[in-house]
Structures are given as C-alpha cells and as structure tokens.
C-alpha cells in the first residue's frame, strides 16, 4: 500500500466516522410502522443516541430515507420522486415487513417490497418491528457506512 493509499484509507475512516454519526433521516411514513417509529424516535428508546435523531422533512437536507410502512402502487411514484430528489451520498432503510417484502398484503394494491423501486441498504423485519430492532438496523447501517469505499474525484469514474 503506497503512501498515498495510506492517506486515503485514513481519510475514508474519518469520513465514514463523520457520516455515520450525523445521519439526518427523512421519515417517509405511511402506515402502522409509523407508530413504532414514533416510539423509537421518542424519549423511551431515543434514536438520537445514535446521532440519527434529527428528522429532515425535505429530501434536499436528508441523507437517510427511512421508508416506514406499506408502499402501495398509488404511492410508488411519490417514493421514487422523493428518492431521486435526495442528494448524494444517500442511504435507504426499509422499515417493517411491508416495506421489505409487501408483508401480509400480497394483492393488487401493494408493491411487494420497495427494493423493486429503489435500492435499499438495510431491511428491518417485523410487523411492526420493535424499537430495539429499529436501533439494531440503524447500527448495521452505520457499520456499512463506516466501511464504505469513497469514490474519489481523481482517478476512477464513479
């Protein structure tokens, strides 16, 4: 590993450390999981201990899209638009069985999992998932951010 690579890996870990503890999330809440999101975000289970407490209701200022609840076919274009309008770097968490795989609603109305619309980083199972599971999912995302390779301007194309 030449001197230059050593420099960039140190910078990548610093960058990863900086990003993972200041996640501004956009709560894309639709259904019952929203109640568990409220419990996870509030004082009892407090998502803010992991630096992800600040909710930004505009995709321009958020870097984590938290898709909470069922995404129906009528709502799919809305989710796609919100995801496209988010700025890089961005991550997506599918929160709850309906977002992960359509859950108990396999019928004409529900998208069977949001990874058919947008790329998803972390899937949180449960219907609804307990707040501890939510925090565990968040920690898994933070590990992923910490070890994410940074695509540097110079050298390789993104």
């Amino acid at each position, binding site marked *: 590993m030449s001197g230059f690579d050593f420099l960039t890996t140190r910078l990548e870990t610093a960058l990863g450390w900086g990003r993972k503890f200041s996640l501004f999330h956009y709560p894309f809440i639709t259904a019952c999981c929203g109640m568990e999101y409220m419990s996870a975000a509030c004082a009892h289970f407090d998502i803010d201990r992991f630096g992800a407490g600040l909710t930004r209701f505009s995709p*321009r200022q958020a870097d984590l899209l938290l898709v909470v609840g069922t995404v129906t076919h009528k709502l799919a274009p809305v989710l796609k638009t*919100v995801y*496209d*309008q988010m700025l890089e770097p961005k991550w997506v968490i599918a929160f709850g069985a309906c977002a992960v795989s359509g859950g108990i609603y396999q019928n004409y109305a529900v998208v069977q999992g949001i990874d058919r619309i947008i790329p998803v980083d972390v899937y949180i199972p449960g219907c609804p998932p307990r707040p501890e599971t939510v925090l565990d999912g968040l920690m898994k995302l933070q590990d992923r951010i910490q070890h994410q390779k940074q695509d540097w301007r110079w050298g390789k194309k993104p």
Partner: protein
Amino acid sequence: MLEVTLSFFVFGLLAAVMILINYLLGPRRPNPAREKPFECGSPPLQAGIGPVHVPFFLVALLFLLLDVEVVFFYPLALAFRGRGFGGFAALGGFVLVLAMGFVYAWKKGIFRWS
C-alpha cells in the same frame, strides 16, 4: 489591526473549506429529478411560480432591514466599548430610528394578512 485581518483570513478559509469539501467528497450522480421542485413527492400542479403577492415583499424588506440592524450591533458594540453613556446613547439613537420605522409599518398593518 493584525487580529482583524487574521480573523478575516481564518473565516474566509473556513468558508472556502466548507464549500469545497462538499464538491470534493460528495459522489456526484446527476439526476434530472433533482432539478424539479420538491412538492411532497407529487407532480407539481403548475409549471413555474406565478407572481408573488405584495405582502410577501413588504415583510421580506422589513425583515432584511431589521436583520442588518442586528448585524450592526456587534461592530458598534465593539467600537463603543469604552465610551460609557455616550456610546450607549449613539447606539440608542441608531436603534430608535429603526424602531420608529418598525412601529410605522406595524400600524400600517403590514403584518395583518387580509
């Protein structure tokens, strides 16, 4: 004098770093959807933004005026540090003039939306 130039230099550097670092480190994947306005995810109902109503302009101008006044407090306070009552009177006069303008606007009913 040195500390003023030094502070300008440091703050300038800080601003430059804050702007450039985003340009350097953020991965750039251009996306046409990002140009369109954010309308809660639904398609916008109107092409551009139409003419904006007068009350908006009045409130904006008044805000600008009073905001700049507040910004002037810091250098004035520094400049009048040792002057005692004289400095305070000068600052008071400055604030009074602007306060009269604010009260006039208030009585004219700028803040009462029709």
